[in-house]
């Protein structure tokens, strides 16, 4: 066999703009969840325990609204990521139904696009649920500890 047939300069996966869509679908929702986790507990902690002593009420009256806003913004980001993942999946599905299409993306890239798009959809689903849980967790309790 001629090595030239096997060693190729073409790397089919992650061509722009599909690259950006795939990365967004994969990491958008987890990134939004990380953002929510990185912002909400520290803000809540500072509002309720700014120095050496805990407060019975938050430092800022609008703390719940601030935390809820963070939650909804992160949720919007995650939903957008999920939408991109779903759109990519549907686009792949349309290609696969078109029997006349000689350039099926997942034949050309040996199934990588389909795999990564599916990962993106699942990832978006899990982290949308995680953000929803966190947002409900913020809204369903009083901001500062009642027991200290």
């Amino acid at each position: 066999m001629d090595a030239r047939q096997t060693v190729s300069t073409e790397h089919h996966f992650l061509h722009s703009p599909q690259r950006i869509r795939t990365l967004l679908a994969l990491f958008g929702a987890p990134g939004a969840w990380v953002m929510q986790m990185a912002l909400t507990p520290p803000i809540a902690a500072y509002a309720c325990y700014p120095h050496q002593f805990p407060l019975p009420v938050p430092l800022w009256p609008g703390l719940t609204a601030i935390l809820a806003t963070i939650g909804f913004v992160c949720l919007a980001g995650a939903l957008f990521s999920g939408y991109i993942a779903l759109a990519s999946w549907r686009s792949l599905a349309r290609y696969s139904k078109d029997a006349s299409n000689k350039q099926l993306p997942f034949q050309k890239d040996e199934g990588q696009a389909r795999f990564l798009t599916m990962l993106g959809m699942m990832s978006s689903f899990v982290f949308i649920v995680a953000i929803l849980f966190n947002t409900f967790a913020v809204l369903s309790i009083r901001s500062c500890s009642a027991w200290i």
Partner: protein
Amino acid sequence: MAATDAPQYRIDPPLERIPEMGRIPAGSAIEARLEKIWETAPGWRGWLSTVDHKTIGVRYLVTAFLFLVIGGIEALFLRIQLAGPDMAFLTPEQYNQLFTMHGVTMIFLYALPVLSGFSNYLWPLLLGSRDMAFPRLNALSYWIFLFAGLFMYISFPLGQAPNAGWFNYVPFSGPIYNTGPNIDVFALGMVLLGISTTVGSINFVVTLFRMRAPGMTINRVPILVWGTLTASVANLFAIPAVSLAFFLLWLDRQIGAHFFDVANNGQPLLWQHLFWIFGHPWVYVVVLPAMGIVSDALPTFCRRPLVGYTAVALATMATMLLGFGVWVHHMFATGLPTVALSIFGAASMVISIPSAVAVFAWIATIWLGKPVFKTPFLFFAGFVALFIIGGMSGVMTAAVPLDWQLNETYFIVAHLHYVLLGINVFPVVGAIYYWFPKFTGRMMSEKLGKWSFWTMFIGFNAGFFPMHIAGLLGMPRRIYTYPSRMGWDEVNLITTVGSFIFAVGVLIFLVNVVLSVKRGARAGANPWDAPTLEWAVSSPPPAYNFATIPTIASRHPLWEGRIEGEEEHSRTKLEEGYLLMRGRETLGTSPIDAKPVVILKMPEDSYTPFLVGLFVSLLFVGLLLHSWTFTALMAALSCAALSSWMWPRRKLGQRTTRHGPASAGRGGEGP
């Protein structure tokens, strides 16, 4: 469009080379030459200098199992002490040291190293490579692990072992309440062990993204590889936190820093945050590769591919990421604001979603397959049952009000043992039964195997399930004895009996290993008719792994043609591939789509990893003994050994493939 996922560098013409393609017949002179290139020198020289991933993997496994046995014996001593009320088998201080060393041994010296053993041995074989990305770093990782383990036991015979629990809470572990060397040994030992874990993790990450056989695209990677990759990435974020925590504690104890000293505005809770930011991800680090073992090996005994490969791969990664957002559930009783408790409780519940996805995938694989009830299958099926029980009690403790009731009781001890033994030890023992033929060329006894499984399974549940009841009855953790009027007598006696039955099961397993190494039936290359690449080579594998670098066309290269709908248009090429034999060579591929990029010149065996490991470990001994001259000398020797290791060598210049994206590097080791 000509975009690639490999970096573009200027080609250095003298380093350019087109690799030849061809076959190497078994028993041919070319194969003998290849064997000569990759073999390790016999005797003690080879023993100290080898960088063969298979040897290092077996060393990890053997060392980790020795630590498992030591930790298990410690547990049996603890259970004798707790078998009845008002026992005086151990003194309180002995009990403290034993339960601390039991935890330290099992969690740090057994649970991850044993998985590193499997991954070290199997990764290049699973990925179609000839070695790990950084063979010498791999050897260093093992030597430091071994020396760190010995270091942490250095004060045990003197009755000065770590005694503040494996989580080592301040202020009890601080200089005021713990004046002996106990905690210093633990603190320095953990920093030392952190070096081993970090370099090992870097090696795994680079190996996955650089060393896969051509055609092993990112969607064809075995789940074990996903599990170890995820755990390795997590280690790179988690280990710095715990190394920092132990270093700060050592500074508090030795030079009078006040990081955790509340009397001088230090923060005891800082310790808990730093420790559990590491500690909870660590739980997933020690279970995800084990889950990967089951995901890859269980389908062999169900005679069908894993159901939901993509979902399980995603579940692995999602579990790890979510695992970084749940550490505060170890701190629910510390008085943190309710918002924090609520959010971390919510995240702790969400983590059950990806875990459940994996469980349903395994159950569906068994349900839709045709199970063959061999010993490895029994261990993997048992693992699924224990995973469910351990997972359920985990979700219970994610609820803040219930956690307050259960906190610091034996319920938590039961939960963590179901998680750590159930999800680690059972898959690991099943994996030994599964891969033993590959490691040794011999089968293990099925009869003894089934005896070991049922004894371990019954003993485990008899030993650890009653701990849930003890916890619900209010029995606190870490007490060295209890009065008879508390109503805990029966559950503790049953637990002790169960733990001894479990130990007998482990003993039967070890006897089986020893007998089978010498007298087991001969195994062929693929005795289980398994689908993955490691079974394509002989048992045990040759030093070079693959005579030619294979080209992979599916997720189940050895089951091609049997699975409906799986890439029928192309076939994996195992016999014909790249001939790389101008010294130790293997193929470097692009990170995502595994296209050939570079011929990697792999380093020869070397003493330097051993010497660096030895000198660095002795440096820590110097710190422990406050011998600053000795410490400085060891630091100098470490630097000298490192310089020798890193010295540029012309023969390690990397060869680019003329038609691949250019990537040239010189010197160093590996990619």
